[in-house]
């Protein structure tokens, strides 16, 4: 299997889907400038530079999707999505229902999100939970290069509007990516990245790697952590989370977005409403603060859950942490 970066995997997915389906077109500020090979192969009509006007880019995609095309729009940085929210939330997400199923909105809105480039709060904001809250939309946020390809292909093939968030910190991370043009990762299927029996670590995007590092450190302490990568935030793979929880009885949810009404809150609610009997300890959420993202590297890193915090939380749940602290206090 060839190795490539997430960015290359996304490009591969776009190319393959545009080749497979003539209805797929790409629109966004600079897409025709940055992806000249796609313009060359598929023509200027299907790879369109747009004005820097997110509202009309998204609105045009909505109208086009309802009228027979399958647009993919690149909205650059996630905070810019707020300009496009009317089209995405009120039109793409609602008009299928309002029209009693007369229209479908097969479209994908891509954007970059998360820490790693020190670009500050107006270019870095994890907005994924906002879109999970909006009916009619689907939301994905991959962590591995292979999933960047497979999930984008699934998103393009889906009949519904899909928000595709790319964690900036993962863009240049390499991984093995299947060459298969039909390598499609279904929306709504989480991946168990590491099996374990003592504690379940649930995450998505960049902090999956954080959890995997934490799991390594926990292993050294004799604690076996299972790491789940949600990949799709909506639809959410509840079954995989619950299956793991019934095995471990302990849950730590980790993400970079702020915690209030976030994905971790939803996972915690899932645990207590559907697997309360299996819980052996309180659910722990490790999230970013309820504060705009910092631009300073030091502050930016401080806002993101680190492996040490995950290790500490997991040890706390299995009892070792409490034990150690008590011993320290006695000493």
């Amino acid at each position, binding site marked *: 299997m060839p190795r490539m970066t997430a960015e290359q995997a996304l490009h591969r997915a776009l190319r393959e889907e545009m080749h497979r389906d003539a*209805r797929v*077109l790409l629109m966004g500020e600079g897409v025709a400038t940055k992806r000249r090979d796609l313009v060359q192969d598929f023509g200027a*009509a299907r790879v*369109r530079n*747009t*004005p820097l*006007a997110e*509202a*009309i880019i*998204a*609105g*045009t*995609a*909505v*109208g*086009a*999707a*309802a*009228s*027979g*095309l399958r*647009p993919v729009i690149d909205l650059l940085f996630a905070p810019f999505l707020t300009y496009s929210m*009317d*089209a995405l939330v*009120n*039109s793409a997400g609602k*008009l*299928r*229902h*309002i*029209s*009693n*199923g*007369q*229209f*479908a*909105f*097969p479209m994908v809105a891509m954007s970059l999100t998360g820490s790693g480039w020190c670009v500050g709060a107006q270019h870095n904001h994890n907005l994924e939970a906002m879109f999970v809250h909006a*009916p*009619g939309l*689907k939301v994905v946020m991959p962590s591995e290069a292979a999933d960047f390809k497979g999930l984008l292909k699934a998103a393009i093939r889906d*009949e*519904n509007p899909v928000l595709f968030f790319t964690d900036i910190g993962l863009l240049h991370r390499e991984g093995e990516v299947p060459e298969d043009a039909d390598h499609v990762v279904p929306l709504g299927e989480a991946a168990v990245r590491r099996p374990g029996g003592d504690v379940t670590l649930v995450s998505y995007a960049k902090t999956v790697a954080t959890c995997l590092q934490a799991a390594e450190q926990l292993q050294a302490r004799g604690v076996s952590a299972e790491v789940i990568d949600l990949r799709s935030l909506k639809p959410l793979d509840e079954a995989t989370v619950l299956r793991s929880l019934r095995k471990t009885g302990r849950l730590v949810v980790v993400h970079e977005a702020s915690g209030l009404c976030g994905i971790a809150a939803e996972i915690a609610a899932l645990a207590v409403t559907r697997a309360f009997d299996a819980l052996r300890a309180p659910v722990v959420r490790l999230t970013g603060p309820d504060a705009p993202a910092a631009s300073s590297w030091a502050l930016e890193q401080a806002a993101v859950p680190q492996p040490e915090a995950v290790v500490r939380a997991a040890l706390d749940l299995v009892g070792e942490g409490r034990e150690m602290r008590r011993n320290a206090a006695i000493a």
Partner: protein
Amino acid sequence: MSPSKTSSDSDQDGLRRLETMMLIRAYEERLAELQRNGAPGTCTSVGQEACAVGVIEALDARDRIVTNHRSAGHLLARGAEPGRLYAEVLGRRDGYCGGRSGSLHISASALGVVLTSTIVGGELSMAPGVALAQQMGHGEPGGVVAVFFGDGAACEGIFHEAVNLAVQWELPLLFVCENNQWQAFVHRLETMRDDAIASWARGHGLPVERVDGNDVDAVRAAAVRAVTGIRADGRPRFLELVTYRLRGHVEPDDQSYVDATELARWRERDPIGVQTARLVAEGVVDAAGLAALKRRIDERLDAALAFAHASPWPASETLTEHVYA
């Protein structure tokens, strides 16, 4: 939906236009009556009937329409069944959208009335996409897209984004601004200069016409010019139809905020009055003919209302249907 005409209008055409305008008026007057008895509020287009009838007559079956919350005129002019419209407003199963739309966002894809938005400006955001799909071969050959919006939407930034993109991408899109002088409860001259909309549009570099929106013949002639132009070169056109919202923003509305002199002046220019006077003067119709017309419309709307009231409520189990494809 007959093919657009370029020859001079026949008497029958004039009479048909009058009848459609009267149908729209009577449909909405009855709706307002229903609301006095507890039906959900509606935004009517009373006073703007000439805009709907004139523009839609210039379109044909190839063309598609994107509209807004004051859509009854557009839908009826396009051939919608009043019974299914009433059923939709009443939230019933036989409405055009199964009762899920209510009065504000009725779409009927079979009639080419796509994507009705009640977010002011939302229709402008989607219309370029519908026109793009048309341009890229996903509509009827030779079709154009018409988007209806008001002076309120013209104050939204998306107005400029949409016109700019349509010009730049040479989209087969007809912008129809029904300038009815009111933006919800605010007179538009509080928010813009008198000639602002046409001037703004002109600034984007596309052909613009500003016509009397209460003269159905003038509206139709301008719309035919615009649609013919779009079909010839594939590029967008812009129409500003100067008209007046004779009823309130949303029913019920006592219009206490409206200047009585202005309202009276516009009532004298009522598009139905203008067309009736013209046809009477030309000897096309007389008092008896008008009475017969009115009787026919009343009978049709009686049947439509009976149909709507007889239509069942949607089943509660369908509450989450059609959220996802």
